[in-house]
C-alpha cells in the first residue's frame, strides 16, 4: 500500500486517484474529529469536505508529507471549532449523531442498530468535548493515546485519564438506560 508521502506527492501534481486514496484513508477519522466537536453529522460532513479541499489547496505548504493525516486532522479540528463558535450564535444544533442510510437491506437489524446509535449519541452528548473526542478517536478510530495527545495538544497521561473518565461515564449512562428499558 502506497504511503501518504507518495500519495501527497502525486496529489500535488493534480493526480485525482492519489487524492481520492488520501480521502478514503483519512475520511473516517476526519469525520469522527468533526463530529466530536460539532455533534451534528451534516455539519461534520460540511467541515470534512471544506477541510479536505483546504488541505489540497495548501498541500504545497505541508513540510512532512508522511504526516498528512495528523496535519489534515488539525485542519478539521480548527475548522470544526470555528464552525462551533458560529453555531453558538445561532439556535441550538440538533443532537442526532448519524444519519441513517437509505435503502437498508435488513430493517430489523437496522432498527436495532439505530436504537443503539441513539443511546450512544445521547450518552456521548453528556461528555465534555475533549472527552468525547478522546473516546471516539480511541474506541472508534483505534487511535493510540500518543496520537490523540498530539492532535489535542495534551500529554499522553492526560489522554489516558480523560479516556478513563469518559468510558466510566458512558458505561454508567448506558447501563442506567438499559435498566430503564429492562
Amino acid at each position, binding site marked *: 500500500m502506497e504511503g501518504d508521502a507518495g500519495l501527497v506527492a502525486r*496529489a*500535488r*501534481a*493534480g*493526480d*485525482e486517484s492519489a*487524492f*481520492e486514496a488520501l*480521502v*478514503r484513508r483519512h*475520511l*473516517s477519522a476526519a*469525520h469522527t474529529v468533526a463530529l466530536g466537536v460539532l455533534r451534528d453529522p451534516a455539519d461534520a*460532513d460540511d467541515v*470534512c*469536505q471544506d477541510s*479536505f*479541499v483546504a488541505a*489540497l*489547496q495548501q498541500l504545497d505548504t505541508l513540510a512532512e508529507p508522511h504526516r498528512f493525516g495528523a496535519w489534515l486532522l488539525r485542519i478539521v479540528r480548527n475548522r470544526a471549532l470555528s464552525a462551533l463558535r458560529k453555531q453558538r450564535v445561532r439556535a441550538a444544533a440538533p443532537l442526532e*449523531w*448519524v*444519519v441513517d*442510510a*437509505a*435503502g437498508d437491506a435488513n430493517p430489523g437489524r437496522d432498527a436495532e*442498530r439505530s436504537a*443503539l*446509535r441513539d443511546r*450512544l*449519541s445521547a450518552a*456521548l452528548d453528556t461528555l465534555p468535548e475533549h472527552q468525547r473526542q478522546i*473516546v*471516539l478517536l*480511541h*474506541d*472508534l478510530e483505534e487511535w493510540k493515546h500518543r496520537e490523540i495527545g498530539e492532535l489535542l495538544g495534551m500529554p499522553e497521561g492526560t489522554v*489516558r485519564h480523560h*479516556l*478513563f473518565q469518559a*468510558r*466510566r461515564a*458512558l*458505561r454508567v449512562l*448506558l447501563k442506567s438506560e438499559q435498566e430503564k428499558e429492562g
Partner: protein
Amino acid sequence: MEPERIDLNALSMDADRFEARVRSIMRAAAPELARRAQRDGVLVVLGQWLRPALAAAAVVGIIATGALLQNVGDASPSVNHGVAHQLGVAEPALQWIDEERDPTVSDLEMALIGDGR
C-alpha cells in the same frame, strides 16, 4: 484499572454513506486538482523543451571548444592574423606576437599610436 473499551461501532459510517462522502469531496476538489494538473502540465512541457535545448547547447559548446582548441594548436600565423584582425588587434602588435618576443617601448608606442588612429 481502565474500564473496558466501549463498542462505538454503531456510530461508524456505513459503506453507502462513506462512498457518498468521498464522491462529494472529490467533486468539490475537482477544480483544484485540475488547476494543479494544468500547472504541472505546463512545467512538464517546459521541462521537455528545456532538456533537449540544453543538450543541444552543450553539444554546440563542445564542438566549438574542440574546434577552437584545434585551431589554436594548429594555427598558422596567417590564420592568427585573420582572427587578430577580426578582434581588432593593432597591426604593430601582431609583429611581436608573431615573433614571440616581449614588446619594446617603441613597439608599445607604435601599437598605441596605431590604436589611437
